[in-house]
């Protein structure tokens, strides 16, 4: 059977999550109106180290995700793998929405920080300011060495 074809005959209806389980794979449909494609990609990118991931489109706005184990796996393990993928997809979707919602404010703060950095005085400016500063009186006699202070009559 070619990759991406539906494995109807070997499906084992033992999933707690409602995914289709095969001998070595789990597959499920993702509604793109709920999970954006970027979230599916985000999850898939994190899972390619753990299993084989293949995406297909059975109908518009629906992505079929097929996770194939790299070695022998039980139905429970495949079910757990699919569950973890779904959780990751949800996390990616939430992060994406948050990122989109806060784009303006992040841009504003970055611009404000750059403006502040550009207008901050340089080290040379600070040194010049110190040089120009007149030293006032020294009521605590900080500039007088301690041994001279001690030798003075009380």
């Amino acid at each position, binding site marked *: 059977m070619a990759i*991406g074809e539906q494995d109807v005959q070997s499906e084992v209806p033992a999933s707690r999550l409602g995914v289709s389980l095969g001998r070595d794979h789990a597959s499920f449909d993702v509604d793109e109106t709920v999970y954006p494609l970027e979230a599916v*990609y985000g999850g898939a990118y994190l899972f390619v180290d753990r299993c084989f991931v*293949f995406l297909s489109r059975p109908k518009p706005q629906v992505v079929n995700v097929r996770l194939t184990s790299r070695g022998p796996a039980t139905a429970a393990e495949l079910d757990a793998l699919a569950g973890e993928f779904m959780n990751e997809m949800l996390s990616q979707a939430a992060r994406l929405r948050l990122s989109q919602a806060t784009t303006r404010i992040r841009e504003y703060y970055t611009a404000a920080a750059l403006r502040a950095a550009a207008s901050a005085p340089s080290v040379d400016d600070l040194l010049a300011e110190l040089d120009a500063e007149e030293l006032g009186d020294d009521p605590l006699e900080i500039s007088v060495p301690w041994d001279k202070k001690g030798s003075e009559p009380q």
Partner: protein
Amino acid sequence: MGQIIFDRSLYTTDAVEAAAAAYAEYADIALEHSSAAVVAVVGAVRGHDRDTIEHSFCNLVLQETVVRMRRAAPTAAREGEQ
């Protein structure tokens, strides 16, 4: 001989081509382009079993697609705001 169908709405053509080039050492992969999909026809394989090579090839196509999408995303986002 296996056929793998990469839907164009999910995989970029560049990514399929890059992965096919990277796997030339392990398999004879011919690409057929249509308006809806890029079909990879996997011929003789070398070094590993067919399943492993085909699945690994699919993983690489997916990785390449995600990398390319992310690289293009900031530009698309800026264009979308205008």
